């Protein structure tokens, strides 16, 4: 037997996911589609926030959603109440969405919406703050949600998802008083793991703080539309 030999590989483990995500990003850029990926624990209120957000933005933009859950189509049904189309991905035991889910969903959803015609594609990820942090989906913006019921130290417990996200939304602010929610402590926790991260405090139930969030997201969508298709996109 020959002695063992070392063969250099030097490749990112998630190369395939990242390449597919980059392909999606190019495709979205070609058609001026802004893509936002929403992550949180189960029960933080992603679907409620997104139903509200889509209902508000559907007059101004062509909006659609892809929603990932382990099982059931319940969340897509709830999101459709916004008036915008929503396509359900059932991951069947996978704890996160990968870029191949998005590619397949876009193809499968063509009877509900055509991605080329969209201004804003919302991706509601599987409720999970750990596994979702490793996979690029080709998005422009990753939003992490935390509710007032989850404790002010939640960002310190899940620093990786905060490191990976761009914006934080604090949900269920209508409960803040009853829960004696400590705004300053939560802000300090976020700032410790992601200095300078923009934070929106909202309640999808009462509409509290929603104007600032909607204005921010609409601004980002318009910003992308204003960018001319880069020359390298064929």
């Amino acid at each position, binding site marked *: 037997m*020959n002695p063992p*030999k070392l*063969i250099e590989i030097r490749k990112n483990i998630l190369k395939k996911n990242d390449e597919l995500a980059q392909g999606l990003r190019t495709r979205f850029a070609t058609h001026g589609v802004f893509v936002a990926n929403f992550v949180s624990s189960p029960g933080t209120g992603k679907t409620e926030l997104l139903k509200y957000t889509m209902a508000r933005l559907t007059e101004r933009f062509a909006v659609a959603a892809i929603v990932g859950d382990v099982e059931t189509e319940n969340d897509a049904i709830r999101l459709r109440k916004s008036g915008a189309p929503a396509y359900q991905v059932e991951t069947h*035991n*996978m*704890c*996160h969405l990968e870029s191949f889910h998005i590619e397949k969903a876009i193809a499968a959803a063509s009877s509900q919406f055509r991605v080329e015609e969209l201004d804003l594609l919302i991706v509601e990820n599987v409720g999970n703050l750990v*596994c979702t942090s*490793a996979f690029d989906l080709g998005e422009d913006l990753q939003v992490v949600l935390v509710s007032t019921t989850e404790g002010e130290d939640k960002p310190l417990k899940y620093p990786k998802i905060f490191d990976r996200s761009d914006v934080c939304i604090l949900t269920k602010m209508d409960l803040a008083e009853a829960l004696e929610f400590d705004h300053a402590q939560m802000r300090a926790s976020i700032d410790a*793991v992601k200095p300078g991260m923009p934070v929106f405090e909202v309640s999808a139930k009462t509409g509290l703080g929603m104007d600032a969030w909607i204005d921010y997201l609409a601004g980002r969508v318009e910003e992308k539309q204003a960018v001319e298709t880069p020359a390298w996109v064929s």
Partner: protein
Amino acid sequence: MRGHNYRSLYMHELSIALRAVETIVEDLADHSGSVLSVQIRVGALSGVVPDSLRFAWDVACADTRLSGSVLEIEEVPVRIWCEACQCEHTLPDADFVFRCPRCAASVTEVMAGRELEILSVELTEHESPQAH
């Protein structure tokens, strides 16, 4: 994708192990022999737990030429750059507070710790039967 055959992927490290095996099998298409070990680099901020990855490894390697291979993980701590002090710091294990340990300024520049990379594989090449 092979991942679809597995019905229990609650641990995303199994997805990651499967992707690593796929990549290695492709890369070794021109090499013969069996894989003894695989060297992987995992950053503390990569979202991957080394112990879970080791746990998933044997399952991911089953029925491939990596079956029976040993996974060797090089763990990379988080290194940050403080603009104010103009110096680099290594954050202690499991402490992801992005603040300079010297001047306490907030730090946003992460120099290392997000790695998730296959470095190399150790391969035993059997001598061809004609050589005997």
